[in-house]
């Protein structure tokens, strides 16, 4: 692990009785993609905006790139060094892609060449297109370009793919993967499990203002994801009953799929051998647990497409 670029200690943000951020502590290391995964209202954006120095907090401490977000002089230094794609990013409608990126660039004493940034995000064809005429995915790409134009050390991407169609989402993912190659540290917030699992080096699952757990996707899955599952297609009650007798609880769904938990290689082969002995010719498949399983276990619910938690 590299040096810490973000250090948060017992951070609290209260709105009257409500604790939007409830004493969280975490670190983000240089060069990694760190993801805050949680439903709407969990405190993701509140935390990120405290780190971006645009939201005051109640107690605790937070340092970004070694500077204290609570100190006025440090805030100036932080703002010079971070790039941000805010939640629901928008720009001046009547200005072109280039003009909007230029506008943000000109806010900094030094910035990258605009044409270079436009190329980096594959926006050449849209350079002189007005922002209002762009699709959702292109708008987000302009947002990322604006976040990168100052050549920041740390990039905050707050819900970068919310509201995008699957194709546009994948395009943005490619952009984020490229940031890592450019050696940027990325702080990502999302409510999409797949996004966090695919992109993040480390994930912190956040719910009700608290970090429920954190670690690399693999760590989280192996700790909390549960067993691998062998799926036997087109089975029946008889087969399911027999497998249950031998290997404990199995489930059969309406499509005739039988799910058998398998712990490790030896148990997998035992089940396979049983199936071979019975001369069955069913299709089989292994399902590995995902972050969604981790989330379900830790938080006790799923997140809908819109970001709402369903317990």
């Amino acid at each position, binding site marked *: 692990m590299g040096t810490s670029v973000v250090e948060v200690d017992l951070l609290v943000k209260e*709105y009257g009785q409500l604790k939007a951020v409830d004493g969280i502590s975490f670190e983000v290391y240089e060069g990694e993609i760190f993801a805050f995964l949680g439903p709407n209202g969990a405190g993701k954006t509140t935390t990120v*905006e405290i780190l971006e120095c645009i939201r*005051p907090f109640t107690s605790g401490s937070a340092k970004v790139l070694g500077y204290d977000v609570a100190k006025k002089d440090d805030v100036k230094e932080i*703002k010079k060094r971070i790039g941000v794609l805010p939640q629901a*990013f928008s720009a001046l409608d009547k200005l072109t892609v280039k003009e909007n990126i230029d506008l943000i660039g*000109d*806010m900094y*004493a030094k910035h990258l060449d605009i044409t270079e940034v436009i190329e980096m995000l594959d926006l050449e064809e849209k350079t002189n297109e007005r922002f209002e005429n762009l699709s959702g995915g292109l708008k987000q790409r302009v947002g990322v370009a604006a976040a990168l134009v100052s050549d920041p050390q740390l990039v905050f991407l707050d819900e970068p793919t919310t509201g995008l169609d699957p194709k546009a989402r994948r395009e943005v993912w490619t952009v984020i993967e490229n940031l890592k190659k450019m050696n940027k540290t990325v702080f990502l917030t999302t409510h999409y499990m797949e996004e966090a699992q695919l992109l993040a080096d480390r994930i912190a699952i956040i719910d009700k203002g608290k970090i429920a757990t954190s670690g690399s996707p693999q760590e989280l899955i192996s700790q909390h994801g549960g067993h691998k599952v062998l799926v036997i297609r087109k089975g029946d009650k008889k087969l399911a009953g027999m497998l249950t007798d031998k290997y404990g609880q199995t489930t059969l769904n309406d499509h005739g799929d039988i799910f058998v938990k398998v712990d490790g290689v030896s148990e997998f082969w035992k089940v396979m051998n049983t199936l071979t002995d019975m001369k069955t010719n069913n299709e089989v498949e292994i399902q590995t647990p995902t972050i969604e399983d981790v989330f379900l276990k830790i938080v006790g619910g799923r997140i809908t497409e819109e970001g709402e938690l369903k317990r």
Partner: protein
Amino acid sequence: MRTITIFKAVTRNWMRSRSGLFFSILFPILLLIVFGTIFSGVGGSSSSNLFIQNLDRVTSGGKPSDLSTAYVGALNVTKLFNIKDVPADANATSWARDALGPLGGNIRILVISEGFQDDLLGGTLKVRVGISYDTLNMTYQYLQFSLNDTEKTMFEQGLAQMRQYNETLPDRSTSLTLMLDPSDQSASVIRNVITGIANAFNYQLIGAQNVIQFNETAVTTTRFSTVDFYVPGITSAFIMTNGIIALSSNSTEFKRRGIIKRLSITPLTRMDWILGNVLSQTLLNLMLTAIMIGLGWLVFNVRIVPDALSIILIFLGSVMFSGIGMLLSGLIKDVEAASAIGNAIAFPMMFLSGAYFPLEFAPSYIQTIAKALPLTYFADGLRYAMLYKYPEGVYTNMAIVGALAIVFIILGSLVTRWKEK
């Protein structure tokens, strides 16, 4: 530097917005053309109709008497009236109504009575003799102590004869009858002109000299038309709406869409942002002024040349109304509510402040309301600066606009949130 960047971006964004252009530039242009055309009297006659029925004839049915003709001639010389003769034997009212037609406007009839000339001359003789008698009598009162008895008797006899002669002269006066519609707004003007000329006739005929000389000198070298009044008026009114309606709804929209938040994360300061917006408003308002002046020149042949004072005043006005706009957008979250409230403030102010109509003729309660409206001082100042070239009239208004500009820009800045809650 960042201020200039913001200024450029905001201005460019506005210039490319059709609705922005419409309300800030095109709408005032239309208004100037409409108001200018309606009120400058293009296509209409500015003189009033006056029907004269002259009953004073030399012989019955013959030609009018010399004095009555001279009187009508004197009225004609004023060029205030479009005089039409009514035949002596006609019913003047119905004749005039027929002559005007249904849309002809107000009926005004002056009837010169029969015997006008004789009565005027006869009446004059009696007045002259009376004046001579009074003068001699007064002289006698002073002189009697230095006169001997014979001289006194002669004087007294002479005065007595003179009084007797005057008493034999009949009391004569003549009359003019003016018939007016009670709703006629020009009634008092017409009455004054007609009696004024009648008085002049009286004095002339008794040979009196004008003891009081009435001298009239022009106060200004230029004569102003209605359009002259509207150019600074409409300009000032739209500088106001640009701040209170356009800037406030734009800022609220920027805030709602997170554009202000996005900029606040960069090293841009709140002051840079506010200054950039104020500069953009100033440029827009100078452009508007130039267009209004150009339009006045091209369409109405009105030549107004703005001076340095006008430009300073436009800057101060832009700051003041931008401040009010920012105050509104800072206090109101909802875009539609911001624009509704902006309209609710701007439109009554437009009409109550004297930007469109001179307040001298407004009821006193409106004048009181107007004193509380920032636009009143701005419009007044701009009119003094652009039109009357009267710096003394500009300074007070400029001081008030300047003070309000400071107050509102500070309040506007305080409510412009550069941080979330």
